[in-house]
Every structure is written in C-alpha cells, then in structure tokens.
C-alpha cells in the first residue's frame, strides 16, 4: 500500500500527471476515490476507475507475494526444489552415453544449447528429442508434445518419420519383453501418426518472425498444455546478417533468452536451442567458438558442443550447473541418434582417402 506511484504500470503520461499533482503512494490514490481523482488530475471518471483497478491489482499481487503465495516471484526452500527436481522427468536422447553425462537426459525447465559445425548432427538430435518427448510415462518418458521452430529450413519430415518409426519399434520390443498390460495399452496411442501430429512446426524466415513467434508462444503453450519441449533450430542464423547495430542484436538476444527462461519455468518444458560456430581470430591462432558472442553464452543453462575428431562425432558437455565436463562419442544411424557400438566390424575405406569430416557408412547401416 505504500508503493510509490511511479512504479505502477500505468501509461507514462498518466504517471507524469499524478506525480505533478503530488501523489506519492498507492494508498493515497485509493483513498481519493475515482471522482476525486478525476477532478484533481483532469481525467474522465472511467479512466480514473481504470487507474484504481490497476492499483488494486498491483497491491493485491504485492500482498500475495509477501505472504509467500504464488505470484510472479516464487519463494520456496531448497528442499522443495530438490523434491521437485527429483520427480521431474528427463527427455532421453536414445544415446545412453549422452544421457549419462547430462545426468539423465535433457532436463525440463532448463535451456539447453547445442553448438556445432554444420553437418555434425544438431538438427538430428533436435528431431530425435521431438520424438522422444512423446514417449509414454510407463516407458520412462514425459508423454509430452513438441514445438519445433525452424529458422534454417533443415527440418525433414521423412527423417522424423524414420526416427519415430524406429522409436515405436523400440518400445514395442520392450513391451513384448516385459509383457505388461499397461505398456501395451500405452502403445495403442503411441503411433507414427500420433507422434507426427503432436510436433507443432513453425518456419521463421527472419528475426522479426522469430521474435513475434516467441511473443506468442506463452499463449500457444497455454492452449496446448501438454507441450514439454520447445526447439529453436538455428537461433544464430537470423541474427548473423542484416545487423549493423550489434548492441541492438545483443539486446534482442537477451530479451529472447529472458522470455525463453520464463516459458521454460512456467510451462515446465525443456527449451533446446541450436547455435552455429564462428571463428575467433586470436593473436597466434584461430579457434572455433559458438556464435553470437560472449554475452549469449550466459543465456543457456546447459551447453553442449558437438565436434569432429577425424571421423568420429563427439559431444562435449561444456557448461552445466550440476554435471561435470566430459566428452562422449555418438552415432547418427538410420534410426536416429544412437550410441557408438563397440567396433565389431572393421570397415575398409576402399582405397579412397576418407573425408575427415564425414565418416564412411559401417556394415550395420548398409542393412
């Protein structure tokens, strides 16, 4: 009630008038009443009534917050947080090594960033996650839906269909092995058609469309409350050209990061972003670093960097608040994102120089 008038979310012109008339606290406004207010600062009675309603709403919100209830700022003990985190699901990636270094999989309510050179498998992992988020709970999944925001146009429906088919088959095998009734019942709704219908795809052509879409996301997510994953494939691409004013870019990116954090927390979903790599030219050497600059590095909670080592794809956990830094190897097969199988078959390179950036197909993939 002692809240200052200048901090109320009113129109600036109105605030200026109230300050000029000498009002200092919200309580004074409430005491004056709408008719008195309208006469003192020269606005209509309806406008004065609106002002008072806003004041009451804000003060209500303040009171609720100080009483420890739920509001814009939540207060809870670390024990409550621990219980919440432990009961939260993870979105598995089907590569057990990657799940292990992430502590179980991609975490809900956190932003995970995947950086890497082109062709290393970022979009593949995103498509895999869009399928894996829909795995029913009895199989260890989160039974959610996915929003896929594509800025580069690299989303291939046929590939997603292949990944989804492999996932369904995998679950069928588990259900048959364990012979439990509820597993089989869950599989009835877990079909290729259902999986594809629950991936909501948006194609954003430039950063304005991306900004607009992120502004509209909270509304979309309240309508589709089962969404547990938001993927933005290619957060760097629309921001790397047409930007003479780099400070504007930093501001927009920071705003975007804030909104995504709010979305991740409010809707209990995981946010996955993919980033490109850029060359940082140093004194004596050049290194590949994630694009979009240093300040963007603070936006994501968890950062994975995918890179090549001769012909093996590696994933490094670069930044995480709870897991230690480590590197694992992974595969991209026709079924999707998988572990590296122990080398059972030695494959010949057929006399040609292997391209260091692409690995030759192994026997198992030739099928």
């Amino acid at each position: 009630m002692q809240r200052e008038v200048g901090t109320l979310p009113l129109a600036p012109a109105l605030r200026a008038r109230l300050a000029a008339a000498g009002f200092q606290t919200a309580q004074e406004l409430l005491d004056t009443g709408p008719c008195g207010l309208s006469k003192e600062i020269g606005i209509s009675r309806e406008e004065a009534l609106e002002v008072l309603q806003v004041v009451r709403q804000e003060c209500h919100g303040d009171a609720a917050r100080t009483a420890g209830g739920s509001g814009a700022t939540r207060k809870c003990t670390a024990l409550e947080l621990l219980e919440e985190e432990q009961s939260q699901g993870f979105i598995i990636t089907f590569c057990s090594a990657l799940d292990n270094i992430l502590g179980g999989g991609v975490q809900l309510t956190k932003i995970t960033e995947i950086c890497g050179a082109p062709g290393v498998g970022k979009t593949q992992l995103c498509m895999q996650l869009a399928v894996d988020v829909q795995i029913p709970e009895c199989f260890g999944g989160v039974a959610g839906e996915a929003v896929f925001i594509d800025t580069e146009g690299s989303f291939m429906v046929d590939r997603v269909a292949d990944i989804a088919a492999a996932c369904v088959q995998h679950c069928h095998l588990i259900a048959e092995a364990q012979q439990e009734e509820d597993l089989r019942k869950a599989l009835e709704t877990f079909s290729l058609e259902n999986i594809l219908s629950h991936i909501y795809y948006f194609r954003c052509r430039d950063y304005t469309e991306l900004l607009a879409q992120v502004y509209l996301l909270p509304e979309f997510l309240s309508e589709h409350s089962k969404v547990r994953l938001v993927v933005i494939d290619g957060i760097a691409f629309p921001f790397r050209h047409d930007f003479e004013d780099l400070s504007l870019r930093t501001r927009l990116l920071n705003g975007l990061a804030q909104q995504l954090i709010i979305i991740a927390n409010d809707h209990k979903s995981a946010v996955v972003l993919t980033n490109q790599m850029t060359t940082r030219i140093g004194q004596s050497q050049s290194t590949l670093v994630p694009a979009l600059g240093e300040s963007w590095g603070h936006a994501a909670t968890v950062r994975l960097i995918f890179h090549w080592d001769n012909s093996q794809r590696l994933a490094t956990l670069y930044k995480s608040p709870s897991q230690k830094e480590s590197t694992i190897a992974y595969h991209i097969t026709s079924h999707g994102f998988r572990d590296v199988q122990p080398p059972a078959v030695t494959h010949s390179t057929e006399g040609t120089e292997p391209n260091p950036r692409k690995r030759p197909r192994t026997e198992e993939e030739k099928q």
Partner: protein
Amino acid sequence: MAGRKLRRAQLSQEMCERLSRYQITTCQDFLCLSLLELMKVTGQSYYEVQKLLCKVSRACAPKMQTAYEMKLRKSVNPSSAFLSTTLHSLDRVLHGGVPCGSLTEITSPPGCGKTQFCIMLSVLATLPVSMGGLDGAVIYIDTESAFSAERLIEMAANRFPTYFDSDEKLLCMTRSIHLYRELTCCCVLKRIMSLEEEIISKKVKLIVIDSVASVVRKEFDTKLQGNLTERSNFLTRGASALKYLAEEFSIPVILTNQITTSLSSGPAIQADLVSPADDLSLSE
C-alpha cells in the same frame, strides 16, 4: 513479413500515426523495442502494450503446421520431390536425386566437372515429367562465363537422341534456359532478390548458380579488416533469399563452390579454417 507496415497489422489509425512520429512504421521496428520504450512511445499502460505486442506479433508470426500435415502434403505428390540426376548410384545415395525445396551444393577442385554437371541438370529440368524431368524453365546465373550453349546442345542431342530428334526441339529447350551473367557480388545478390517474379512468369523449375565462390573470393580478401563480416553478411543474405525461393516454389537450387586449403596448424595466417570455402550454411 518483417517489412509489413503496422497499418496492415490491424492497429488503429491514430496509433499508427502516433508511432510514425517516432519513425516506427513496420512490424520490425515495433518488435525491436523493449516494453518500456513501447510504453513511452504509445503512451499506453503495461497491460495494453502487451496486448498490442500480441496483435503485432500475430501479424508477423508464421503459421503453425503439424509434422503430420507436412508429411501428408509431401506424400500427395511423391514424384515431384526430387530431380533425378540419371546417375543411378548417385540417385540411390541421395535417396531419389537432387531434392526439391532445398539448396544443394556441389564442390570440387577445378576441372572435375561441376559446370558440366550443372549443364546436364539444366537439360534434365526441361524434360517432361514422364522422362524424369521437371518440365519447366531454368534460371542459370553464371559468374565465371563458363556456360557454353554449344556444349548444352551437344549434350542434349547425344544424351537423348530420340527425344531431341529435330532442331526445333533443341531450340525449344534452349529457349527455356535463361542465362544471366553476373560478375560482382552486388549484382548476384540483386539478381537473386529479383528472381521471385521471374520464377512465376517463366515457370521456372530449377535455379543454378555457378559459382558462388568465384565472386566472393574475388571481392572479399579475408586478410583485410572487416571483410570477414561483410562477406558473411552477403552470404547469409543470399542464402536466406535462396532458401525462401526454394521452399516457396518447391524447386531445387544448385550452387557450386570451390576448394580451399584448411591449415590445421599454422600461426597468424588468416586462412579459412573450415573447408570447403564459403560454405553457404556456415560463414566466417
């Protein structure tokens, strides 16, 4: 969509006039401002400004489709998803051929046959659908003056002698291949931006750019300060324009590139560290 005027975003007339006084006329200008700036500029309260933001966002935001709808749309017309290269092993590896609706890059050292491949694909695109072609025109942007019309006719006559049995058929084919010689980056970009109308009027089914690397390497010396950002600026603008055309019209776009040296350990030389050079999907 970014350049859409606020008038067409269904904001009220007086609001648009008020905003234009602050030079905010397009949706892009509006969405780039922070909430506090918007409150100052519109003179509205916090909640009103949020509603305005949603309105403007709805005018710019893309339409939602589910992956299932996309799959259904593709399966309705499966044969138009690829342009077969008629090299069976290549088609097998590419799962059908050069995909429609996305960019394909062809890279090699000089003399391996990139331009020949592009010329052959141009011939294939003009063939009727029954013969595996796309039955449409071709836009060929040539930056190296390497395109030879005689070679084109020689290839067509020798490869498909039964189809191109008369001179008239050959001339008809050559009439549907539109050649543009552009020699600077600026011209190439301008040409790409102007392609949308040409594609509709000439019923174009294939775009070939041979080659991107030659203009870029001629004009941008990466050893000079600032050239790296300008070069990546040019490349990403060209790339997004081409992606838009490819997706909008569901046509294949073919780009050729050159080879550069990747120096794995070497001090102070600002060479391209990621090869092939001038990769359009990555920059710098």
